[in-house]
């Protein structure tokens, strides 16, 4: 199986996010950048499939030089090759990113493409299904279990209020959901080996894909209203506190 993984580097989820002075981006100083947690699951799943079926795992990321760190993490986990597409500062929206990635993926002969169901920075939920659409292949989102056999993939995916078991033909694209696996940590020898592996870097202008001007633009960012410290309900015993809380919820907050 030839497997491609799409991955993104994002601020660690514990990051404090501040907005830049022009209000259209976040401040990047002091941020700890990591591989998107859903993409870690994508790398892990690809490695597990490779262990069963043989083949290769190629990881793709679109982004500035810094994202090479996330690609190296994937190599250290065990991916075979890494490709970075460098936008050279060109602004891209979610669909534009999908166009560029689909263009590069079409140059390979991948049986399976694995991505995260969302990146925890833009929270766009878009790139995976859009890539599948642009490649005219099926996709299954939010997968928590998969089996590949005889040119087909069978997946359990989460939906609102339940799960579906779906089957489709390869090539296909799937996106990961929590519960699929526990991503491995890179081993020390893996990290050493990954340091020496080259990263195939492709400037966007040389890919042959013109994603066009972004159709979605960020006009302004702001911080949502923050809750202040709550009122602590006092009372001697649990029952007294319960009475006081219910009264507050009923008379002040009017939620019950």
């Amino acid at each position, binding site marked *: 199986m030839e497997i491609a993984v799409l991955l993104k580097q994002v601020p660690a989820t514990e990051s404090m996010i501040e907005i830049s002075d022009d209000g259209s981006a976040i401040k990047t100083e002091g941020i700890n950048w990591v591989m998107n947690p859903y993409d870690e699951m994508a790398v892990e799943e690809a490695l597990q499939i490779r262990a069963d079926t043989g083949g290769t795992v190629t990881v793709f990321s679109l982004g500035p030089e810094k994202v090479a760190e996330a690609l190296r993490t994937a190599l250290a986990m065990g991916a075979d090759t890494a490709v970075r597409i460098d936008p050279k500062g060109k602004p891209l929206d979610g669909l534009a990113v999908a166009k560029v990635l689909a263009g590069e993926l079409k140059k390979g002969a991948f049986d399976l493409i694995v991505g995260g169901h969302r990146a925890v920075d833009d*929270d766009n939920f878009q790139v995976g*299904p859009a890539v599948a*659409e642009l490649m005219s292949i099926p996709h299954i989102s939010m997968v928590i279990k998969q089996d590949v056999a005889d040119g087909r993939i069978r997946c359990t995916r989460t939906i609102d209020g339940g799960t*579906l078991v779906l089957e489709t033909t390869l090539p296909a694209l799937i996106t990961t*959901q929590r519960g699929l696996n526990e991503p491995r940590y890179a081993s020390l020898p893996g990290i050493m080996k990954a340091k020496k592996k080259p990263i195939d870097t492709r400037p966007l202008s040389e890919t042959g894909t013109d994603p066009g001007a972004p159709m979605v633009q960020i006009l302004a960012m702001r911080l949502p209203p923050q809750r202040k410290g709550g*009122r602590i309900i006092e009372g001697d015993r649990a029952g007294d506190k319960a009475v006081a809380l219910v009264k507050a919820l009923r008379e002040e907050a009017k939620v019950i």
Partner: protein
Amino acid sequence: MPQGILAVTEQADSALKNISFEVISTGKKLAETTGGPLTAAILGAGVDAMASQAAEYGADRILLADHEGLKDGLADACIQAVAQLVASADPAVVLIGATSLGKDIAARLSARLNAPLAMDCVAVRADGDRIVATRPMYGGKVLADVSLNGSPAIVAIRPRAMEAVAAQGAAGEVETVAVSLDGSTLSLVEKHMETGKIELTEADVVVTGGRGMGGDDFAVVEALAKALGGAVGASRSAVDEGWRPVSDQVGQTGKVVAPNLYIACGVSGAIQHLAGMASSRVVVAINKDPEAPIFSKCDFGIVGDLFDLVPALTAEIEKLKG
């Protein structure tokens, strides 16, 4: 010229879901500035009875895609149907619920139509001839206004972010569109729905248990949720411990919930957890540690052992409800 708004609905158990009314109502409001018509799209098998529900919320026109292949709500069949309904209605704006199905449809539709998409939005307005949507980013730590330049502008709306308002006087003329689903490539092997469970993202009340539950016995929070007619959530720690299924997880890598009342029991209030519940209207924290960070992000807090407090609260609520 594309004009008007297409509101794509979703159903469960032969009724439109709440999110569908939220989407239609959002369309109704938006149409005041963009102009109409407001068309509601209903897709499924045997769905004609639902048309009147869409009309009650103000749809001028209702397009039905009625096809056996749509009965299970599989993404690839729905995407084909929606694409054909969009071609038929030629709207300037497509509104859809950002549910797990709606997100799949929206993402593929944007690629198919080469159209701009704003996902999981909490507000949308027209600014001159462009659409501006507000969407949370970075796990809700930021709200961004984004402009959509292109047609149709696809806006996926977060469940419970907009109000569903019944509207009178709409014509609600119904038209059936014959759709072809030849391109379907997914086959359904099995569908498993958790019966009798309120979906977290749709719940009015959510009671969450964290690591403070100390084990998989969630009886006390379940009883409180039941008394309040709400759903039970879990922190990631409670999920990682194997006490609750992943589908119960609230947070940045779980579900984003926005109930009227959120009660966190034995949850410390990590930033990733707060990301999933910050837009709740009223937050109550129950924790035995007075220094727990959750107390600085709630409206009401009680310091104490949840195993004493939660049953006392349940008893008090039951008394109230008679």
